[in-house]
């Protein structure tokens, strides 16, 4: 599903160059549940944002299914991203001005899904995540765990084949964290490929594979 070959990212400071990622080669199969781990500054989030096509300033080859992302224009990358990728953030990043329903509806409206279809899809997700009763609340009326639940609902509503999660339980206490990880496991069992960045061994244990990064290099993969 994903093939990375010699991915590099660096920043120039005058004559010197600082590398954030060095010659990253990796392959992720459909249905995988991969955890990216490593110390702070290892390049974990940078790699995730490259996978999510939020970052385009890198070199190397990145294939997603049959699309050569490294060759695509910004517009085409946006098309591929909309088609395949859902993103979950550590700080949830729900939009404060929108209700739970509207937050979940937003990715569908950006994908030009008809209103009648959207209503059905959002209702289905609300039901699946058991948050029907919260649909008219605003994010600041929810607990952290509930907000992350909504954020995951928003990430999966457009039925992406790949979910990228950047420390999804980093701001949650243990019980809430477990609940979220169980949810990811169920999504993965349903066929969704998941790539998460995490510091937690316990969370990594939910996955099938771990990629360890250090100073931008992949130092270990199992």
């Amino acid at each position, binding site marked *: 599903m994903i093939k990375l070959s010699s991915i590099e990212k660096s920043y120039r400071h005058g004559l010197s160059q600082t590398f954030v990622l060095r010659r990253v080669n990796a392959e992720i199969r459909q249905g995988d549940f991969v955890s990216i781990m490593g110390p702070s500054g290892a390049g974990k*989030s*940078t790699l995730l*944002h490259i996978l*999510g096509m*939020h*970052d385009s300033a890198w070199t190397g080859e990145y294939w997603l299914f049959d699309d050569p992302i490294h060759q695509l224009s910004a*517009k085409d990358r*946006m098309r591929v*991203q*909309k088609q395949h990728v*859902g*993103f979950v*953030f550590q700080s949830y*990043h*729900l*939009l*404060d*001005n*929108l209700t739970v329903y*509207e937050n979940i509806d*937003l*990715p569908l*409206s*950006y*994908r030009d899904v008809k*209103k009648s279809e959207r209503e059905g899809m959002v209702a289905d997700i609300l039901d699946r995540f058991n948050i029907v009763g919260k649909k008219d609340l605003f994010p600041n009326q929810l607990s952290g765990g509930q907000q992350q639940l909504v954020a995951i609902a*928003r*990430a999966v509503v*457009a039925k992406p084949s790949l979910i990228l999660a950047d420390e999804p339980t980093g701001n949650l206490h243990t019980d809430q964290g477990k609940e979220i990880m169980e949810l990811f496991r169920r999504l993965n069992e349903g066929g969704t490929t998941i790539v998460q960045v995490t510091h937690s061994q316990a969370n990594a244990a939910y996955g099938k594979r771990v990629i360890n990064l250090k100073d931008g290099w992949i130092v270990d993969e199992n």
Partner: protein
Amino acid sequence: MGVLGQDIRYALRSFRRAPGFTFVALITLALGIGGTTAIFSIVDGVVLRPLPYPQPERIHRLVRVNARSTDGSFSAADYLDVKRDTKAFVSIAALREDIIDLTGRGEPQRVPGAQTTGGFFDVFMAPPIAGRVYREATDQPGAAVAVISERLWRQQFGREAGAIGTKVRINGTPTEIIGVMPATFRHPVVADVWTLSPLEVPVSPVPTDDGLSSRDVQYFMAVGRLDETAAIGAAREQLKSVGARLAREFPDTNRDRTFDAQPLAESLVADVRGALWILLGAVGFVLLIACANVAGLLMARGAARRRELAVRTAIGADRGRLMQQLMTESLVLAGAGGGLGLLAGAWILQGLMALAPDNIPRLNEVSLDWRVAAFTLAATMAVGVLFGLAPAMQASQPELNTDLKDGGRSGTTRTGARSVMVVAQVALALVLLIGAGLMITSLARLQAVDPGFRTTELVSVELLLPQARYSEPLQRQFYAGALERLRANPVTARSALIFPFPLGGSNARADFEVEGQPERPSSEDAHAELNMVSDGYFATAGLRLIDGRDFTVADGPDAPPVVIVNDAARGAFGGRSPIGARVNLGTWVTVVGVVSDARRQSLDTPPQPAVYLPYTQFVMPYMGVLVQTGQGAGATALVVRAAVADLDPELPIGEVKTIEQLISESTGQPRFRSFLLAAFAALALLLAAVGVYGLISFSVAQRVPELGVRLALGASPWQVFRLVIGRGVQLAVAGVIIGLAVAAAAARLVGGLLFNTSTTDPVIYACVSLLLLTIAALACYVPARRAMRVDPMTALRSE
């Protein structure tokens, strides 16, 4: 539509959640759009709106022109020749303003009227709202019929249909009311009664020996309706050819003169059109400043929303979609601002109408109607795009990785575009301030002009006589009787008669030829201002007798005709003393005195050569009395009313005004212009100050960590204070430099409206620049104080 509706809903919700931003943005827009709407409605009503008649573009005013000037007054013979020989007009009519005494129905009323020839209503083709109008084809000259205005119909007849056919006495003559014109019928002069002249031209107020064949006395205006098949070019050619023929045949009166036609709508507003466009331009500047201000606010808001926009991008919004949403928000904001602006415009317009001088033509046609609403809508949409585009373009390109990580706190501060907005605001405000500075200086200099006559303790009272009841000897007799009675009363002991009042707007002039002096070419002004006065006028008005004598009772109707000239007329006497010289004013008169100069036309027109004739020898039924008194207008009016009632109980007195009022009215338009420009400039200054304050405040908030580091490294709070103030002043200086260049170019536009004031007056430019820089520095004061109080520890922790 679904997506649009969603965007509008989100926009409304986000504005509700940011009440401070929304309030400031809406007030700014409402003031900008409101001011523009109000001024546009005046420009529309006065300049742009077609006259309310069928095919109004075909109605023209006929004028006499020479190489230097255009004159709208016609003599009887010239008019009759033009009417006969110009075929391009389907109808031509003549009219002159008249004073109508309406009696025979309740209290005697004095109302403005117009005496016209039979084709007058054929030119305008405006249907009456009741009865009929007189026409050239059906009504004979002199028929005792009158058409009245809707106002008079309402006030005198309670809008009864029975008014038609009623006989009233108009200037003493029983006259039948045949029709009522709608309230919109107010051109080319405002009148309540239109009467039919007994001649083929209006009757002359001055008795002429040669009647319809006179080409010397120009006293009425002419209008014509262009034939539907004729082009205006052809009509002008015909007028020119009539003019050329008359110049050949009557060189004494018509040499170097010809005729022309001007669209009536244009000729009515020729004096104020330029000033109104300049005011619209000025208020447009205010609107631009308001836009720049709101754009600055939106950019600041965009910076605060970087996390939100990054999230939207991360979950699939492309740049076009973000732009669409941000522009929808701008347009929703503009729409609300436009709605409030329309309300503010109605309110501002009400204020402007109350302040506007009466002599702005067509002012009564000004209203907030669908045309103005359409303008406001267009302005609102343009404004929405204008202030929304730059912030939307900027905000729709989030730095995703950074913005998601820290909510945009540590990203580039991106104040560059906002700085450009602030510089533009300062520059535009400076242009307006310089415009206002020039206007106010000009007005102050105008008001400081010595008019040459007394400027306090003078009261003027119009004593107009209806010609139908007062023949020339009776006019003389009445005025002499009135003067005698007034001088017998201690309140009005120092009274004199005069026509016309100084600064009253009259253009009465006479040809002026000195016996024994070479004839001047007609291209040079060979006219003198014509005045009729009683003895004692010069002492009452405060003019000095320089040479010779004042008029006396001996200068009666049968005595040799005499004249007094002013100092400015001396040049025409070739260096000789004017006393004893003879002057031809249509008839030969002997100069018996010379008086000091006085400004009659306006304060900004230098004194012209003038002649004063004794009313006992040359009387006009339009005389007035000027009283030197410390008792005020009310007490004077009482005495004058009693004296007039003693002579003629049916005769009302005319307007009573103090000399201060006459002077103030004569400067009404420049005062109005100066007031408006000063108000716009003050608003611009306020908005620019808010813009500077907003940017510096925002920049301080963004730089808290940096300021914390500076303070931690040993910078004193004063150094931080100077750093912040310096940034604001730097932007203001850039704005001032650009503004000075723009102002120097734009000021030429107002050059024609200034009196004794250079458009590049360095003192005004310097003072205004200094004022703006001071205000900009003051606007930075609060954020600079805030910057001084940054706690380095807190600032660094938040980093």
